[in-house]
């Protein structure tokens, strides 16, 4: 049985950073917005007030490993292995109908989407990258500023003037040595620009360095988009519905129909305009099936990514600090080749499980555990990302059942591997000059998709059959807009979330003025 539910001017699918960012300008312009969200139920928050309490908690194993089921190997990023991440990611692939080959297809049905477990790195693209965006550098910069003001950021400072005392000791050591060096060409470093509050603000509290970042920040210091839902709900023209699994889009009499499932019931929502912000994979599936572009190979961008570990020898064997910050602490960009900018973050290992380190040691387990523990206060871990143009993934959307199917084929090109290798080499040299040693055997190239930055399937002003126009409107489906990563025309090596939000803000703004214009004409008529 199909029920048609609730009309609105604009239906936004998804409550992730893109959906929320697109909602703000629409709501402020007085547009009636209905946000549909697959989320239902709450995500777990940390069971203990801080890291020290968690470390000595007799039931810590339940938090870290879950009470039951297989235990993730150390090849799974610790970021994805926490109870919070396991719950946030659970069931996405299955209900989105994803079949992935050599690609880690990540997505979240939780309120706030993947921002519930993001690294909170709020980097902006540089002008060269922004030139690819419709509206140009100026429009994106203005949107960056608006989004950054809204979500609250910290860091992003020149290391020469930044306060280094908040950094993990080995990272602070690295930054301290960097400060004393004269500038090196091809390698730049700043404190990580994070979407983390330094001070209390609007119901969220400033970071207390409790160290439980990966377990889900209970203070709300780390931004995720579900934190904005209460503010959105204060708009009388905003409505939110959870537990709604959107399955397909169709059109009827010039209006958009959103077909969804609530529990077992099939329902339809109707509006003149739909904004897709369900996360790149789900959005792509909905958009391509809407324009009948099924069975066609579409390029899927992601950041080829790897990691490497360094050690600051004089910190080996120290006790683990009581205060810690589990996310990126320094942000770097590095020239990996002519016109190839790699980027990444340095973070400490003091909040992480020892397994990834211990599992690589040739010792017997008891000694490997103790050696890893001795290393951990001295460890600096770095991620390295390459621009999305070095990725080589494709997806095919198929009609299969109500929710469709997405087949993803990932591939790490030889060039990406070579460039990551060069990035590691150069990074190791720069870091060595700053007092830390690369750990032999710690280099790791992760599988495509492990970056959790799938984007660019419907690029704005793209030339392929799957594309969106300068305003994010799907080519071939007037009235359907894409506000999330699927519309990115370019994936830089810098983490894309803030850019996706800024673009969503820009698209929401354009849409608001377009709606104001048409309703103005209607009023005049």
């Amino acid at each position, binding site marked *: 049985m199909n029920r048609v539910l609730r009309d609105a001017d604009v239906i936004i699918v998804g409550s992730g950073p893109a959906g929320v960012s697109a909602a703000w300008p629409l709501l402020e312009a007085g547009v009636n917005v209905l946000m549909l969200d697959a989320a239902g139920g709450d995500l777990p928050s940390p069971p203990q007030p801080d890291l020290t309490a968690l*470390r*000595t*908690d*007799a039931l*810590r*194993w339940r938090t*870290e*490993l879950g*009470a*039951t*089921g*297989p*235990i993730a*190997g*150390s090849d799974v990023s610790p970021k994805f292995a926490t109870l919070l991440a396991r719950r946030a990611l659970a069931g996405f692939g299955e209900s989105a109908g994803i079949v992935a080959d050599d690609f880690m297809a990540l997505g979240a049905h939780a309120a706030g989407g993947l921002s519930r477990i993001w690294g909170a790195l709020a980097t902006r693209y540089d002008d060269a990258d922004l030139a690819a965006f419709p509206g140009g550098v100026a429009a994106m910069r203005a949107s960056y500023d608006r989004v950054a003001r809204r979500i609250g950021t910290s860091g992003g400072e020149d290391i020469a003037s930044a306060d280094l005392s908040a950094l993990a000791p080995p990272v602070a050591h690295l930054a301290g040595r960097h400060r004393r060096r004269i500038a090196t060409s091809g390698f730049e470093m700043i404190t990580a620009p994070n979407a983390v509050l330094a001070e209390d603000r609007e119901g969220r509290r400033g970071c207390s360095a409790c160290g439980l970042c990966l377990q889900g920040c209970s203070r709300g210091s780390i931004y995720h988009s579900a934190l904005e839902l209460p503010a959105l709900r204060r708009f009388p023209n905003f409505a939110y519905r959870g537990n709604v699994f959107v399955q397909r889009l169709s059109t009827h009499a010039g209006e958009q129909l959103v077909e969804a499932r609530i529990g077992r019931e099939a329902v339809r929502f109707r509006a003149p305009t739909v904004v897709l912000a369900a996360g790149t994979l789900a959005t792509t599936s909905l958009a391509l099936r809407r324009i009948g572009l099924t069975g066609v190979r579409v390029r899927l961008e992601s950041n080829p990514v790897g990691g490497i570990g360094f050690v600051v020898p004089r910190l*080996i*064997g*120290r*006790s*683990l600090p009581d205060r810690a910050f589990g996310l990126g602490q320094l942000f770097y960009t590095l020239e990996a080749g002519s016109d190839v900018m790699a980027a990444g973050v340095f973070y400490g290992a003091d909040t992480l*499980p*020892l*397994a990834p380190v*211990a*599992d690589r040691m*040739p*010792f*017997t*387990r*008891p*000694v*490997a*555990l*103790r*050696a890893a*523990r*001795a290393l951990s206060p001295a460890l600096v871990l770095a991620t390295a990302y390459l621009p999305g143009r070095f990725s080589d993934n494709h997806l095919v959307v198929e009609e299969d059942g109500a929710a469709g199917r997405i087949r993803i084929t990932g591939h790490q090109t030889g060039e990406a591997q070579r460039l990551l290798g060069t990035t590691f080499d150069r990074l190791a040299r720069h870091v060595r000059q700053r007092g830390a040693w690369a750990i032999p055997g710690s280099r790791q190239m992760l599988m495509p998709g492990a970056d959790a930055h799938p984007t660019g399937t419907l690029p704005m002003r793209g030339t392929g059959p799957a594309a969106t126009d300068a305003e994010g409107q799907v080519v071939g489906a007037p009235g359907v807009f894409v506000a999330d990563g699927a519309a990115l025309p370019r994936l830089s090596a810098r983490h894309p979330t803030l850019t996706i939000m800024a673009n969503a803000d820009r698209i929401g703004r354009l849409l608001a003025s377009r709606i104001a214009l048409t309703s103005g004409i209607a009023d005049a008529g």
Partner: protein
Amino acid sequence: MTADHIIVTGGTGYIGARLIETALAQGRAVTVLGRRAGPPGTRHARWVLGDPLPDTLDRTSGTALIHLAHDWAAGEDGNVAGSARLFASAADAGIATRIFVSSQSARQDALNRYGQMKWATEQRLAGATCLRVGLVYGGPRAAMYGLLCQLARLPALPMIEPGRTVQPIHLDEVVRGMLAAADRRAGGVLALAGPDQVPFGDVLRALSVAFNGKRLPILPIPLRFALLACAVSARLPLIPTIDRERVLGLAGTEPIDSALDLARLGLDVEPLRLRLPREIAGRRALLSEADAFLGHAGIRPTSALLRRYARAVPEGAIVRPHWGLRWREPLGGATPLGKRLRIAARIAEASAPGEQMLGSGSRPARILRLAFDGAFELLLLPSRLIASLAR
């Protein structure tokens, strides 16, 4: 039609006891025929093989007879004629569903007497359902299964034709099959055996791994030699007697195609390897593995941690060294042993005892100890390397 009253002979045996337990749990009435009364909740009628069906019984339309009793002392005539008498009187009494529990070895030319007897009995029971049961395992360690469990504990096992296949089926599956036959889901001669042909040696190897965490070396021996050993063992004191009947029963079993019959009975039979870890002995072996591995990782594990380990590896226990784990830990994490030691290490690290082990001591003490351990680890390397290669 549901059999809400079951009359059972042989109710004290390995299969009979579980059959009664299950039938009672399903809310069926049970009458035990035999010398002794059955468990609480059952009715009892005195009966020995050779007697007709006692006429005092409740024989309402939902009644089914399941005949499991076999009397080794009664000889061929006693068993065949006794069963025939029971079934004839049951038919006269109007009991339509009469089930004879036979054996996979039932054949006219069976090597063992048991198989011959079962076949001869089947021929005499017109209108009855005959269930030819395969190798039954699981539950209490009794009957053939108990013997196999004992054999699997040996350091090495000489075995007659270990490549000959059997068709294992779990005790609970057999009981479910019998009750399905009692409910008349299917009739006639039915094979109640696992659908897969499993080499008999593999059954013993699987038992050895799942219950003892050990590899069981099997030395194949010819049948002729085994029968000689039976004869010798029967005459020598102080060593376990090898039963000639059982040896022949195993050697003489022919494959039967059971898939269709299992489908008719609506029975799913799980492969032995997947089922053994859920047996009590399998579970105990896994917990003992957890204890060994978590202990190796450096902690004194709590029972909650042991259970967590067990839940992480539902495949059950693996072959593991029972001594000298430090000298035999493989270098990498690719082997099953290496993988599980890493799982144990993760659990140990995330536990309170682990934190105590890792977080205690002063910095110089920790570093000194690590240096000492590092040197010792060098001494362990050659033997660990050999252990890694040997696997």
